[in-house]
């Protein structure tokens, strides 16, 4: 396959996902970041940088938390790996783009330490 065809396919896939919110929402449980509730620019920037640091520094903890939440260990391990990737990548993006107060929702709202265990 030619390189332009691959690029075109990726572009079309991205457009489909971004232009169709229901399809986008069906894949993951995207949640707005907590810092979006802040009122001022400085507070939003601080919140976004802090949220980024939190997710980048502790995103790997999903590797251990997610298997403990699921009764099916394989689902939990897979979810843990996927959440680690999304949390780490999302945290890095939030930390790097902190001066721009535009939210990038993360799946399940990023890192959570207070969730109930054992999801069926």
């Amino acid at each position, binding site marked *: 396959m030619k390189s332009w065809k691959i690029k075109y396919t990726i572009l079309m896939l991205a457009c489909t996902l971004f232009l169709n919110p229901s399809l986008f929402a069906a894949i993951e449980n995207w949640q707005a970041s907590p810092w979006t509730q802040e009122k001022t*620019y*400085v507070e939003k*920037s*601080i919140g*976004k940088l*802090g949220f980024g*640091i*939190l997710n980048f520094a502790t995103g790997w903890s999903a590797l251990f938390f997610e298997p403990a939440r699921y009764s099916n260990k394989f689902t939990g391990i897979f979810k843990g790996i996927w959440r680690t990737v999304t949390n780490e990548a999302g945290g890095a993006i939030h930390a790097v783009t902190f*001066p721009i107060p535009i939210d990038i929702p993360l799946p399940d709202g990023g890192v959570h*330490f207070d969730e109930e265990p054992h999801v069926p």
Partner: protein
Amino acid sequence: MKSLMSLRPSKSLMKKKIALAFLGFSLLLSSNPAFAASPWAAKPTYAGKTAGKLGYGLKNSTFGWLQMFKESKDPKYNTEWEGFCTGIARSVFYTGSGLIQLATFPIPVDFPDVGTGLYFPPTPPPNFAKREKKH
């Protein structure tokens, strides 16, 4: 090769872009009426403002990093980790704003405006109650 070189932005253009970005960022940080100004900005005289700005700069540039430990104890966060990480971000802002305000203290312009900055509420000494009883 020459055509490729001509596509690269010139140094002066890059400088202009950086200056514009800095100006935009400065406007965002300084012209927010909803945000509380630095505490020294309320002083009426030039001497009061510069002294206040110098003190604010010294305090925040020296002790701004303590905010991460203070923020971790804030009950508005679900866990201490969330407060600590937000505190790291706030420490960066406080230390940075403290350094800028320290360097520019003779100019009484409130920039960058990050609010009250590092603040520890005054606490009475441990033997305050005993001393009160004695009197």
